[in-house]
């Protein structure tokens, strides 16, 4: 009975990681973390579970980017919005802090087999998960339209970089401080039409995910939603992160968001029960 080095390239690792850079990004904090072995297993839509000092429950964060670093090998970036005790603690950690990192975790985004048009809609910190997806889609010659939303300019993720990852970028803020003023919901029909998307990918608060799923269904597009359901482990061990879905057989089920998700088909989620 020993700790095993995960053999399959798909299996997550539990490693002793380290914060190697930290910087402010609007209302968020961008952390670069060395977590040996984790970046190589990454696929867009994965997340990591991090240990927060003094807390039993792990905290989940989308993997925003994999970077090469000369000193540490490949590293991963996460975007932290400081709000509760765990996220505030993480956001305050200096370079050099050691962190237990488990990942990559969860089902990644499903990619279209053909080079179709894709609409990526992200609101708040969760938009972070869409950037590596956009790159992967571009590599597959998909036309990527990226819509980034937030309550104001400070709550937008990496807008500058967005221009590099996507063919078209739309920015929406609730207060109109940058981009167009309004909500994702209002602009969705237009976005779907203009992008002519065959697949819509969504990340953000439940309302955004639901709106995208419904709008996509109306247009006959597929949708994929990156769902966040609170849960203590992130590894599938506890069944503590219930996600109400409809099975392929049409039967309502509750699955583990961290393991059967967090990325799920938008038309499978029973949004009213979330």
């Amino acid at each position: 009975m020993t700790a095993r080095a995960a053999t399959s390239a798909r299996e997550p690792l539990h490693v002793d990681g380290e914060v190697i850079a930290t910087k402010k990004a609007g209302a968020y904090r961008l952390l670069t973390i060395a977590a040996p072995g984790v970046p190589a297993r990454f696929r867009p839509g994965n997340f990591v579970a991090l240990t927060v000092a003094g807390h039993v429950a792990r905290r989940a964060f989308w993997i925003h980017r994999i970077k090469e670093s000369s000193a540490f090998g490949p590293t991963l970036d996460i975007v932290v919005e400081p709000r509760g005790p765990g996220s505030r603690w993480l956001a305050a950690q200096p370079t050099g802090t050691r962190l237990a990192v488990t990942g990559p975790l969860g089902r990644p985004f499903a990619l279209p087999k053909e080079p179709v048009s894709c609409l990526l809609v992200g609101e708040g910190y969760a938009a972070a998960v869409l950037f590596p997806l956009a790159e992967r889609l571009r590599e597959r010659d998909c036309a990527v339209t990226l819509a980034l939303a937030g309550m104001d300019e400070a709550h937008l993720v990496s807008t500058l970089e967005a221009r590099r990852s996507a063919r078209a970028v739309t920015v929406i803020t609730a207060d109109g401080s940058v981009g167009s003023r309004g909500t994702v919901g209002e602009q969705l029909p237009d976005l779907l039409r203009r992008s002519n998307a065959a697949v819509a990918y969504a990340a953000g608060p439940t309302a955004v995910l639901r709106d995208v799923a419904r709008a996509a269904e109306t247009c006959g597009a597929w949708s994929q939603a990156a769902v966040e359901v609170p849960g203590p482990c992130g590894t599938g061990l506890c069944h503590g992160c219930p996600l109400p879905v409809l099975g392929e057989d049409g039967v309502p089920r509750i699955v583990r968001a961290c393991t059967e998700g967090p990325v799920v088909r938008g038309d499978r989620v029973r949004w009213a029960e979330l």
Partner: protein
Amino acid sequence: MTIALGPVMVASGCGGTGRELAPFLDLDGVAFVTRSVTLDARQGASGPRVVEVSGGLVNAVGLPNPGLEHFLATELPWLVRAGARVFVSVAGSTLGEYADLARRLSRAPGVAGLEVNVGAPDETGLDLFEVREPYHAASVVAAVRREFPADRPVLAKLRPDVSRVVEGARACHEAGATAVVLGNTVPAAFPDGRPGGLSGPAVAPVVLRCLTETARSLPGVPLVACGGVHDAASARLFLGAGAVAVQIGTALLHDPTTVARVAAELGDDA
């Protein structure tokens, strides 16, 4: 019957289906207690199932499980192939259901033993057979024992309720339990007032008290400690106080390599 449990077991409901633990722990030879299985599939609770509190977690997961049939068809064979020593945790709403579960599990290949969950923190909410009094718990154990081969262990898992645990352990042992597990979660409430069970380091002193009182009163009964073990030191505390083995639950949610690490460190002791 001597029971070889190994000093460190995976606690019920905290090892997923086994598959999710496999990347972090070679299951070969590991005593793995499944989450509690019921005759029919259960969805589990829909609201927030687990919240963090000081030093632990409060949970009311609601026994989500695919039901015995599906468990036998999919989860059990996988665990057996992985080499785990599978202890199936059983839960039911009637004595008849417990007997049924035990009978059908006795025929399933690869079941090392059973663990009878007679210590849920809130039976009413779960529609489980009520075990308010020790003789209720004992009747469940007896029903299971009758249907399960005498040469394979049946563990009785109790509430860590100091005022009743000695009586409960005695009654279950007399009813045929090979060993008594102390215990399930401590009855507690979520911040919003819903009933749930407290687990993790916060409960270790409570479980230790149950263990010391039971070990003193019932020196002949093998006791397995469960509650708050998270490293070799906390495991040794229980083993030193008379437990034949420890189970690890919540700590696996915090660090999925815990069982592997603790077992390795304890192995170094030997």
